[in-house]
């Protein structure tokens, strides 16, 4: 975890390109069903191929690059609120999630991850036998 302390070097802020370097934190919902955890994130303006979902050392990271919009020649900005740059968010996974079977789908600006529960974390119905 030494990397955590190297991130703040003065250069980063000085050399950062004005807008492109911004990283936003997408709003997420996390829902649980008997078999899965579902993570739903709003990442408007991304493309499915530019979304990166990975699990490293138990950390699930979703990252989406939002491409620069094609502006007309001589275009002038009147209002800029909608962020361009990257969306990024990380979650620590418990060992009750089967990280090898995570499914990701992107539609209408919403990324939906389905995280199946590990076998041992699933609800199990125990049959009651009668003699």
């Amino acid at each position, binding site marked *: 975890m030494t*990397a*955590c302390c190297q*991130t703040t070097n003065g250069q980063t802020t000085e050399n950062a390109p004005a807008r492109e370097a911004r990283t936003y934190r997408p*709003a997420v*919902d*996390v829902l649980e069903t008997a078999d899965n955890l579902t993570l739903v994130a709003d990442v408007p303006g991304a493309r499915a191929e530019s979304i990166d979902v990975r699990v490293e050392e138990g950390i699930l990271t979703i990252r989406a690059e939002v491409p620069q919009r094609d502006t007309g020649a001589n275009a002038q900005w009147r209002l800029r609120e909608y962020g361009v740059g990257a969306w990024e968010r990380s*979650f620590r996974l418990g060992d009750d999630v089967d990280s090898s079977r995570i499914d990701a789908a992107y539609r209408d600006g919403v990324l939906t991850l389905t995280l199946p529960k590990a076998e041992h974390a699933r609800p199990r119905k125990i049959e009651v036998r009668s003699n």
Partner: protein
Amino acid sequence: MSLIPWRNRGAISRSDQPRSIIDVMHDDLDRMIDRFFEQPFGALSADTGERFAFAPPVDVEETDKEVTVRAEVPGVDPSRIEVKITGDTLTLSGSKEETKEEKGKNVHRSERRFGSFLRRITLPESVDPDKATADFSSGVLTVRMAKRPESTGRTIKVNAK
């Protein structure tokens, strides 16, 4: 179940542009502040006083021929978006519904906003509502409006009685 937000960015730092969590928080904060000054009281409708769940962030861009407005509306059904041009005001409204999968589940975290939204934008130039188009893609609504041809000015004759 455990799915815990993780903020130690060091563990996932990229080599090209290392950024600390403080930088990222600043970006989020900047955005919140920008939005606050844009709409300090949320999306309060002036004519009905009705409260809306949220106001989507927008970009407004102008060229010599057209005005383009882009709004972030992820997860909104495009058929439920209404785009209206009245005079120099563009009104975007609609609602964001929870999908079936999201209803009635055990919710661990709920940050996304649902419900009706409204955003009114005063256009920088007069536009021709008949020459406007609206497209929805990847949760972004793009409204393109052609500007009215520049008025050349007219001399008004003074009638003497």
